[in-house]
Each structure stands twice: as C-alpha cells, then as structure tokens.
C-alpha cells in the first residue's frame, strides 16, 4: 500500500511539523531530534490554520526540500459537532492552499482508523472507509483534500492511520489504557463497561513517532495503518495495569452494566511488515510497563 521514494533511508533536509505541541507531535519532535533532523514546528498559537492568513505564512515557511507533517486537528474532546468538523476542514483547506507544485518534497498526514467502517475486521489499508462519526468523516475528507492537492502539485503524500494511542503525557482521557492508568493511580480503581470484553489494538506513542520517522526517511507514499496487529480486550489491558501495581497498591477492577453491544477491532498489519520489515511494535505489556515506570517517577 505504500512505496518508498528512498529504498535506503535518507534524512530529509528539514521537517515542518503542524501540531508539534500535541501528544503525537511532542513524541515526533523528540524522535526527529534523536535522528538529528532539523525541525520547524508550529503550535496553533504560532500558526492558526483556521485563519486564512496561515496560507501565506505556511507558503513562506515551506522550502522545496522540506517534508511537511500534518498532525493538527481539533480532537473529539474539543467537540464532536458540525462546527468542529468544519473548522477541521478549514485547517486543511488552508494547508492545501499552500501546497503548490514544488512547495515541499513530501507530505505526511496523520489520520485515524476512525475512517474505516465499524464492521471492517480485520482492518487493512484496503478496508472500506465508511466512518460512523464526524471525527472519521473529518479525517477521511482531509485525506481526500490532501490527496487531490498533492497529486496536482506532484508531491508524494503518506497517510498514516493510527489505532488507539496510549503512553506517557497523553492529554486525552478516552476509555482505554490511559484512563485506566490514571484512575488506577488516583482512585486505585479501573472501571470497565461490561466485563471489558471488547478487543482493540492499542499502540504505544513512541511507535507512532518511529513509524512517522521511517516514512520520512524513506520518502514513503501511500496509505498505511499504524497498529500492532495484536488486539487485546479492555479487561486484559486493565489486568496488566493491576499487575503492575501489585506490591505497591491494590487496584480493583469495577465492571459497570454494558449499554452497547460488544464490538472488536483487529488489524492485519501485513503491509507494515512489507514496508518496514525490520521494525517491531512494542507489545501492550511492554508499553504499559514503560508508561507505568514514568508514572512512578511522576512523569506520566
């Protein structure tokens, strides 16, 4: 599903990051620093993509040999309504307006697995895109806007669709490992819906940064899911956290009545094996262990 313009890795001259202060952005900047790749990063305060003026600012910033990574988005916790959707589209409308031919060497867009139909299972890059919520609609529309624009501008576009993220420093508090870690620390309790049977593919944030890095080094183009290929139940994730606390504190798992039917989401990550054969995702046990270690040190 993706092909590399650089079969052997080559550091880009410079990477411009839109949304460098968010969860993914911070880890990406840290990773690019270890790779010694020059970076220009914008927060929404420095470059407000919702404003038409951002077009000119971005145009002036971008150099033909730059790689542009677009992470900026108003996440669902900032609103799930039509207004948020339209603002998100407006951000990419302005980004696209800056992407004239030769504007940069590559665009990497951080999308989401929310673009897929709920029943797609196992999810692969060719699975049906039929998002059920505005968050997925937003990412799919943005993908198409960027695809059309970069095609016309002859700029390679890499679309990455991560599954559920977790790791130290996540500001979101959605149902899953991050929330479980927080409530285990604060309340010594993890609350599950039903018995936490739903299986999901949770991805450690450092792995997302590394995959983006690989896409930049290889000048990759196409669509790739970012998932480990191993789905675990919410109960298993919760139990792993309970085990991590053993010896220090007793964490209870509380099960609430279920209000929604059980659904699962698995990923077939064969394309990742083909695209980046030597890359290995961390297991959820390993990722939770790392996150827990940082929580213990007060950095979680």
């Amino acid at each position, binding site marked *: 599903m993706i092909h590399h313009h650089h079969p052997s890795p080559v550091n880009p001259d410079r990477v411009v990051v839109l949304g460098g202060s968010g969860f993914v952005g911070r880890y990406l900047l840290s990773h690019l620093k270890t790779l010694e790749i020059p970076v220009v990063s914008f927060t929404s305060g420095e470059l407000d993509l919702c404003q038409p003026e951002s077009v000119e600012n971005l145009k002036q910033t971008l150099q033909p040999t730059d790689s542009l990574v677009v992470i900026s988005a108003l996440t669902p916790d900032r609103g799930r309504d039509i207004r948020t959707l339209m603002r998100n589209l407006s951000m990419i409308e302005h980004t696209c307006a800056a992407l004239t031919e030769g504007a940069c060497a590559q665009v990497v867009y951080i999308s989401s697995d929310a673009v897929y139909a709920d029943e797609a299972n196992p999810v*692969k890059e060719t699975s049906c895109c039929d998002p059920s919520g505005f968050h997925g609609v937003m990412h799919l529309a943005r993908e198409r806007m960027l695809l059309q624009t970069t095609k016309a501008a002859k700029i390679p576009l890499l679309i990455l669709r991560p599954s559920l993220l977790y790791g130290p420093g996540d500001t979101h508090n959605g149902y899953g490992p991050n929330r479980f870690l927080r409530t285990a620390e604060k309340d010594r309790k993890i609350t599950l819906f039903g018995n936490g049977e739903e299986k999901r593919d949770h991805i450690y944030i450092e792995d997302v940064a590394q995959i983006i890095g690989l896409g930049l080094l290889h000048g990759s183009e196409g669509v790739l899911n970012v998932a480990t*290929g191993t789905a675990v139940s919410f109960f298993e994730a919760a139990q792993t956290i309970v085990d991590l606390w053993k010896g220090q504190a007793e964490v209870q798992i509380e099960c609430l009545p279920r209000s929604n039917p059980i659904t699962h989401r698995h990923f*077939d990550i*064969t394309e990742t*094996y*083909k695209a980046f*054969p*030597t890359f290995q995702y961390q297991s959820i046990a390993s990722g939770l262990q790392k996150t827990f270690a940082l929580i213990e040190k007060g950095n979680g």
Partner: protein
Amino acid sequence: MIGFVGLSHLGIISSIAAASKGFQVIAYDANAALCEQLSRRELPVLEPDLPELLEKSQAQIVFTSDVTKLGQCNLVYISVDVPTDANNQSNLTVLHQLVAAIAPHLAPETVLVILSQVPPGFTRTLAAQLQETQGDRRLQIYYQVETLIFGRAVERALYPERYIVGCPNPAQPLPQPLHELLSTFGCPLLPMRYESAELAKISINMCLVASVSVANTLAEICESIGAEWSEIVPALKLDKRIGAYSYLSPGLGISGGNLERDLITVKNLAHEWGTDARVVDAWIANSRYRRDWVLRTLHSEVMSQVQNPRIAVWGLAYKPNTHSTKNSPSLALLEALTAFSVQAYDPQVVLNDRPARLTQSETALAACQGSDVLVVMTPWAEFSAIDLSQVKATLKGATIIDPFAALDAQKCREAGFSYFRLGSTPER
C-alpha cells in the same frame, strides 16, 4: 490423424495423451527448437509419468514446426495455454494469431477444437470470423473444456471424469473424428452450447475456489480457538453434499494462474452485465490475505525475537511436481524478505533474478545451515523424508513454519521445534 497446435503445457500433455491411445498425432508449434527438443524426448515441463508416456507413444506422435502437415488431420486442437498478465487478465491475441496462421492450411471440413482457456463468447465469435474468412473450407468449430492440473496432468488427461464439449448445435451428434477420440477415454460426454461449455469450465474453478476459501477461513479460526482443521476435514468429506474429493486443504491463497484468471473473467462478466459477483471479491481478498500467513507468522514468532534473522526457505514452485512459479506464495514471501538473509532450496526451480541477500542452496539441509527458522513453502515429497535430527543439528533456531504440514507435526514436536502449520493451534 489428429493435430495439436501450440505446444505449451496443455498442448504437450494433450497431444501425448491422444497418441498414447493409439491415434496418429501431429503436434505442431512454430518454435522449431521446441519441436526438435520434444522429438529428442526432452520435456520442457515437469509432470509425473509424462516421460514414460511419451516413450510409450513416440511411434504415434510427430513434433513439427511445419504447419502444412496439419493439412493431413481431420481433427485439430488449438491447445496453447493462454498467457495471463500480472493482473491475471488473459491475453487472447496469441490465440487469434495462431488460429489465423493455421486455418488456411487445414483441409476442408476439418473439425477445429478450441482447447485453450477462453472466456464465454469467444468460440462463437471465432466461428463467425472463420466462417467469414474461411467459409469455403466449411471448418467445424468446437470448444472442449480442459481441466489440467499442474503436477497431475497425465492422470487427468488419461482418466478424465467427463468431457464437456461446446457445440454449434448441441442437438446434433458430435463429428465422427471428435467422437471417436473422446469415446476412447470411456467417460461421459456432455455436449452443450458454446457459452455453456465455456462457463462450465469457469464454474468448476469457482466451486474449487469456494471450497478453498471455506477451508482457509475456517482453518484460520482453528488456529485461534484450539480446533484442528485436519480433524474436521474427514467429517466434511463424508458428507455427500460436499464430497470425498472436495478441495478442503487450507493453503496460502490461490496460485498457479488458472483459478485467478477465471476469477477475473467472472468479475469482468459481472461488471459488463451488471450481475452481483461481490463474493468473488471476497474470495480474492481472502486469497491475498492467506498468502501472507507465513510472513505474519515469521514476524510474530521470529522477527520479534531475533534481530536480523537468517531464514531457510524450502520450496519455490507454487506446488509440488511442477516447476511453475506463477503467483507462487514462496516468491511473494521472498519479495517481502529482501531485508533479511534468506537461504532457499527447491528441487526443480532455479531463481535467476535473486535479491542481494538471497542465496540458493544445493540441498535442503544446506539451506538450514545457520538459519534461525525453517519455512517449508512447497510440500515436495522429499522434504517429508528428511531426518529431522539433521535439521535440528543444522538449524541455529528451533522454529519450523510448515503451512502445508509437509513434515510430521509429532516428530517436529519431539525434536524440540516450535511448529506452526495452517489450521492448527501453534505449538510453541
């Protein structure tokens, strides 16, 4: 006298099979070197029992590049395999060119039978074209379904289950030379209209694909829930609605080229006529997914444990007893392993274009030398005879991935290997 035109796999097998029944056969191909090679009994295809059959039949068959010799035949088969491209689309140009080249040399009223793989509608169109260009010769055009199986081609040619013949008028008796030949094989003859026969061939292949897809889908569930597909298969085969010979062995997707070509033909027909063939898309998707089973297993069991592993691969052909690598899962796997050191071995296939980190070993055990894992991609019989203690002594790691269960699972366990095969719970 019977003529065969086009000496690819299908033409070679079919012409020798007809000769073995005592008929005088002219086997024609424009490639003179190929004809000389065949005259010396040097076979360019690998099929069990074929050399013996040719030896037995050599007095009845003449391989020639002289097209005029076809004028002696009252029955001529067009027997060239229709090539397919990377997308499994047939290239019928070869067939049209061949018919145009030989038709002027045929005797009047020759029975011309298309044995090549053609889509529905082809024979009727061809018959109309020949009527226009060769009308005065009154050629009689028929289509006959081939059901050759790579690796079992001789058996299939000598002992067919039935003959399906596409006719201009199925109510009329078959022409005498065609009837005489087919009757020799002692199986039912099923005359039908051209389009029915052409679609019958595809229908057979779709049933096979459906069975394989069922096997693959359920075998994968077995791998997850602790069931054993090989225990389930006998129960299915004893069900008369399914049958003792049904294709229920799980595999690494559909390969070989023939089934894939017919899948594409059905998709094209459905697209043209607006019929619902979405199940075909599902079969194709399942086939592609299962093809990568070994790659996924390698990553989950080996790459996640060993940095820069060395991988031994036994088997390159798409199945045993053939040198064909068309859509071979082994070659697809090798394409995804270019970042790793691979030592491959196959009893018949020699790879000419090899990636930098792929070496081809002289023996199966040599491929294992220093490798972290052994992958058996083609279940050649010779692999099952190899002493596992020697494999154990040669292999650096202790993992065997054997999708087709070419090796004895119990012996692999006893030898201390982690063992992975299709349709079975992983044994770590």
